[in-house]
C-alpha cells in the first residue's frame, strides 16, 4: 500500500511539474557550456556519418511520436538521429542530440513502447542529467582526494586509498542508476499522458528479458539477472516493477499505435533483420523473428530469416529446418526474392538440377538488379548445359 501511495505521489508531482525544454547556455565560461561545446562537435561528426538513416518518412515518424509526448516547444529543441545499428539502444546528449538505434525501432512492438524509451531519453535532457552527473563526478572526486589526503596524513596504509576510490565509484554508479529510474518515470508519464496504453513501458523490458533468455550466449542469458553495484542502469526486473507500479496508479489510455509502427518499420524489416544476424546470436534471432511475425510483420519475410538463422547456426538438423522454413515462407505474404536463391543453392547442392534452375530463374526474374546477378547467370548457364546433356 505504501509503495502504491509513493508511486502515486511521484506520478502526481511529475505530472504537475511537466518536463520543460532546455536552452543553449548563455554564459560560455560554465561547465554546462563546455558540455554543449563538446557535444556540438560530436554531433557535427555524427550528422555526416554513413550510419545515419536520413529517410524523411522514417524520421518524420520517429519525430512525430516524440513530439506527441514531449509537446512541440520541447520537441523543437531536439535533433533526432536514427542510427543503423542492430542493438536495442538510444541515447541523449545534453545539447538536445538524441540518437535512436534501428535495433530499438525493430524491437518496439508499437508506438507506445517506442514512446516510453524516447520519453525516457527526453527525461535525461529535460532534467539535465548529463550536467548533474558531471557535477556529481567532480564533487565525488573532490571528496575522494580529500579523504585520501586525510588517510595519508593519518598514516593509514595505502590500501585505504583504494578503498576510498572504490566507495566513491560505487556511489557514483548508484547515483547514475537513480537518474535512470527518474528518466523511466518521466518516460512513463509522458507516454501515459499522451493516452498510450500504460502497460507498454513495462513490456519493453519484459520483451528484452525474454530475448536475452533465448540467447545462444551464456553471458547474455545471465545479463541483468543479479544486482551488480557497478551497473549504470537498474536491473530490467526492477525497472519492470517500478513501471508496473506506475501503471497501476494510472487509468490507462487504450492507444498503442501498433499498425502505424508496423507500417513505418516494414520497409526496413529485411535490412534490419539481416543486420541482426551479424551478431551470430542465432537462438536469440530465431526468437526475435518469430516474435516479429506474431506482432504482425509480413510472415514470409520473418520465416525466410528464421530459415537464414538456422542455415547460419549449423547445428545438427539445421539444414533441414532452414529448408522447411524457406518452403513455408514461399507460401506466405511478404516473402523476399532471396528465398528463391536460398532454395536454389540448396537444390543445386542436392543435385536437384531442374529445381535449382527454376529457382535461380525465379530469383533473377523477381530481383533483376541483384548484386550477384552475374554469378547466378553463370549457374543458370552451367545448369542449362548439364540438363541438355
Amino acid at each position: 500500500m505504501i509503495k502504491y501511495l509513493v508511486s502515486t505521489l511521484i506520478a502526481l508531482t511529475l505530472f504537475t511539474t511537466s518536463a520543460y525544454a532546455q536552452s543553449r547556455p548563455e554564459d560560455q565560461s560554465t561547465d554546462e557550456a563546455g558540455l554543449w561545446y563538446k557535444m556540438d562537435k560530436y554531433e557535427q561528426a555524427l550528422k555526416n556519418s554513413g550510419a545515419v538513416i536520413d529517410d524523411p518518412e522514417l524520421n518524420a515518424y520517429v519525430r512525430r511520436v516524440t513530439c506527441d509526448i514531449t509537446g512541440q516547444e520541447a520537441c523543437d529543441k531536439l535533433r533526432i538521429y536514427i542510427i543503423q545499428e542492430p542493438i536495442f539502444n538510444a541515447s541523449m546528449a545534453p545539447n538536445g542530440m538524441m540518437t535512436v538505434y534501428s535495433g530499438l525501432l525493430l524491437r518496439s512492438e508499437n508506438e507506445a513502447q517506442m514512446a516510453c524509451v524516447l520519453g525516457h531519453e527526453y527525461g535525461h535532457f529535460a532534467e539535465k542529467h548529463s550536467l548533474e552527473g558531471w557535477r556529481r563526478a567532480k564533487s565525488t572526486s573532490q571528496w575522494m582526494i580529500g579523504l585520501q589526503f586525510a588517510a595519508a596524513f593519518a598514516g593509514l596504509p595505502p590500501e585505504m586509498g583504494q578503498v576510498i576510490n572504490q566507495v566513491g565509484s560505487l556511489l557514483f554508479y548508484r547515483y547514475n542508476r537513480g537518474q535512470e529510474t527518474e528518466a523511466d518515470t518521466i518516460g512513463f508519464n509522458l507516454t501515459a499522458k499522451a493516452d498510450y496504453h500504460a502497460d507498454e513501458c513495462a513490456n519493453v523490458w519484459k520483451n528484452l528479458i525474454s530475448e536475452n533468455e533465448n540467447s545462444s550466449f551464456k553471458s547474455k542469458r545471465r545479463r541483468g539477472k543479479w544486482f551488480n553495484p557497478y551497473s549504470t542502469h537498474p536491473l530490467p526486473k526492477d525497472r519492470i516493477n517500478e513501471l508496473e507500479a506506475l501503471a497501476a496508479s494510472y487509468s490507462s489510455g487504450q492507444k498503442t499505435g501498433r499498425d502505424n509502427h508496423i507500417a513505418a518499420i516494414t520497409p526496413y524489416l529485411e535490412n534490419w533483420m539481416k543486420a541482426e544476424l551479424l551478431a551470430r546470436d542465432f537462438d536469440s534471432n530465431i526468437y526475435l523473428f518469430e516474435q516479429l511475425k506474431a506482432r504482425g510483420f509480413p510472415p514470409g519475410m520473418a520465416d525466410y530469416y528464421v530459415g537464414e538463422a538456422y542455415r547460419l547456426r549449423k547445428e545438427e538438423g539445421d539444414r533441414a529446418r532452414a529448408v522447411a522454413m524457406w518452403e513455408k515462407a514461399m507460401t506466405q505474404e511478404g516473402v523476399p526474392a532471396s528465398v528463391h536463391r536460398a532454395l536454389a543453392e540448396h537444390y543445386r547442392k542436392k543435385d536437384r538440377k531442374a529445381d535449382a534452375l527454376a529457382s535461380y530463374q525465379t530469383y533473377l526474374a523477381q530481383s533483376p538488379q541483384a548484386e550477384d546477378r552475374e554469378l547466378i547467370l553463370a549457374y543458370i548457364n552451367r545448369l542449362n548445359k548439364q540438363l541438355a546433356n
Partner: protein
Amino acid sequence: MRQYLFFFVIAAALLLSACGTTQTKVTTNEFVAKPDAITLIYTPNVELSVLMATGLTETRADWSTSGQENITNSLKTALANRSGGIIVRDRNETQTARQVQLVKLTDAVLQTSLQYDYYGRGLPTQKDQYSRSIGPGAINLAGDSGAKYSLMVLARGSYQSGGKVAMNIAMAALGGPVQFGGQNLYAALIDLETGDIVWSNLATAAPDADMRDPGGADKLVQSLLKDFPL
C-alpha cells in the same frame, strides 16, 4: 618546514620552465612545392579545457571558441604575404558530402599521425619514412576554389585551475604525482593532388604563447609555421 619550501621551489620551477618546442616532419614521398599555389585553410579544430585539482579536465567553450578565432586570425596574418593566396574555410560550414567525409578523414589521419609519428609509438614499417596521406580524392576538397594545398590545424590543451596549482604544491611536498596542463598546436599541410601530408609540425606552447589571447596565438602560430614549405 624547510623541506616543504624546497619542494615548493621545485614545483614552482617546473611550472615556469615549460618552454615552447616544435617538431617538424616533411614527407619522404616525392614532393616539389608549388610556390604560387592557393592554400585552403580550414578553421582549426580546437578543444581547450581546465585541469582541475582532482585531475579531471573540463572543456571550456569560451576558451575553445576564442582559441579557434585567434589561431585562425594568426594563420591569416602569418600567411597573408606568401606568393600564393589563401582561402579560409569554416570547417563546419555546409560543403559537399564528399568534402565533409574528407575533412573527417583528415582529422582521423591527423590523430593517427600524432599518435604514431609524434607521441613515440612509432610503427616498425614507418621507421625511416614519413608517408601519411588521405589519398588522391583530396582534390575534391578544392572544389572550384583552385586550391592546391590545404592546411589543417588541430589544437588541444588544458590549463591548471588555481586548485590544481595548490594541489601540485601539496603533492610535491608529499612526494606524490604532479600534473601540469599544456597546450599543443598541430598542423598538417596536404597536397591536394596526391593527398599526402607533405609537411607537419607539432608546436608546444611556451608560457607566453597562450592561444586564448591574440598576441599569444600569434607567437604560437609563428613557431608552428617555422619551416613552412610554401
